[in-house]
């Protein structure tokens, strides 16, 4: 599978995750979000940017708890919970948000 955007073709796997993480840019995030029926807002970008920063440091997406805590610190305790994240990313903050942020899928019993 592939995404055609801005005159280039970007490869994705069967599940829609980017094959080459370096391909990611904000326009591609928009297309990935569209495929997931997620309309990106500033709130979504807060999460996406945090995921990408964490990934750059640790080569893995943050644990859901690490993510909720970070969001809570930044945006206030009422948003520091997984319910808020599920509102933004209904299929689950770990998988759906990672996909849009261009990160690999978290695997295992999650």
């Amino acid at each position: 599978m592939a995404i055609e955007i801005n005159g280039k073709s970007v490869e994705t796997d069967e599940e829609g995750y980017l094959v080459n993480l370096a391909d990611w840019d904000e326009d591609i995030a928009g297309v990935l979000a569209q495929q997931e029926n997620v309309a990106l807002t500033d709130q979504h970008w807060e999460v996406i940017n945090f995921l990408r920063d964490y990934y750059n440091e640790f080569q893995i997406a943050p644990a859901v708890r690490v993510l909720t805590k970070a969001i809570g610190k930044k945006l206030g305790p009422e948003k520091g919970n997984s319910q808020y994240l599920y509102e933004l990313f209904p299929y689950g903050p770990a998988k759906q948000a990672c996909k849009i942020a261009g990160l690999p899928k978290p695997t295992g019993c999650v």
Partner: protein
Amino acid sequence: MAGPEIKAPAYREFPTVPALQPDSMVGMNPYVANEKMNEAIGFPGKLVDNWEQVAIAKMGELLTKYRSLKVYLDSCVHCGSCTDKCHYFIGTGDPKNMPVARQDLMRNVYRRYFTPAGKMFPKLVGAQDMTKDVLDDWFRYYNQCSECRRCSVFCPYGIDTAEITMAAKEIMHAVGHGHKYVNEIIGKVHKIGNNLGLPGPALEDTLNGLEEDVKEDTGIDVKYPLDVQGAEVLLVTPSADFFAEPHIESLIGYGKVFHAAGISWTLSSKASEAGNFGMFIGSYDQLKKIAMRVREAALELGVKRIVVGECGHAWRVAYSFWNTLTGIGAGANDPFAIELQKQLDPNYKQPAHICEVTWDLIQAGRLKFDKEANDHRIITFHDSCNVARGSRMGDYAGGQFDIPRNIIKSVANKYHEMGVGTTHEKTFCCGGGGGLLTDELIDLRVKGALPRMEALKQVVDQHGVNFMATICAICKAQFTKVLPYYGFKMGLVGGVHQLVSSAIQLGNEQ
């Protein structure tokens, strides 16, 4: 996810045998592992040219190696006892999800190549050539079996469908036709150390964060140590416990138990995974290679005890197979086993389940609880299949059923059992075990959860149950995902040590 909307099947008024819906799950095709994933773990990259011969040769090898497989393939009399015992059959109505039909996918091929009647008169005995259509059916329907073994409880001959499924998967791997979800994960265990692909520094960061959180919540410095040389206990737990909700709540609970009892413990960045997907694909080599990391970590860290966290199939592997795989356990007197046995403390069961550890401490009066802290919860317990039917706890038959329940009743006041015939050795699978916990199988996972959801609904309606405790990472992840399809909140599922964590008194440590 894109695609057709997935809906939960309707609850049945009476749990009768569902009407047959032939081929209703024929479109459920899991993703095939790509060349890179297969080769990374030592399997052929893609379907080999002479795969039919390779498959039959592999089947021949397995029939010699595992006497049980031959007995299972020979002894079925098609009595029908198993037909309506599989949660996937109940949820889908697809006749190929009847355990007997699943077995027959292999049995028919076995007859063709390994029995005189099948060799001479294949049509008379329903024998079947190994063709691409057969392989496709294998890949489809053996990946609709969670290897939960409920059907085997009802089989008068004791035929274990899970073992046939594992053999089929082993054959498919041998010809280069593996399942992406499982093979990608096994690759990560070998490369990074756990199913999630969580590297050491990220693990350390997560554990530091937990220490801060627990300090904030309780005011007590509970430690979540990593790679501590000379600790008494090595805790091996599924990597989901570091990452996912509600899993992490139980990890917090394990730490509090060790803290309150004054037991020094450590996690290991090398053995940062209890799960062992090698079992799901029937591969002894993978099973052993994955299990060996635990032995190596134990030897390197010099621990006296090995404890396994809340993970169903990990406990089956640890309890039933570690002894011969890695020399962890009592009895063996070869140099390999003796090396580790000399180090481990014979006063404790090796390996031990975290529930055994906690229950022993409760009985010894070394843990104190505020049961009222769980009063907002009305609790039931879901037995996980690999604990219930593949292992044991304590020192008597059925300990694996009593011990988790004893713990719950020691830390909480409100508890109700789900219906007879849906728990203990007859427990229904969550619908996501055996390597099927993957997004492309979500329709199957939702449908396969039906019988458990029916039993849950009954206690929710009658007793107001709002917490289903379990001791398996797959169960926790699967229920979190499928509960909303049945109108329940995802937070209704959690761990036994999540309950322990809420009620335990940390100030009273001895």
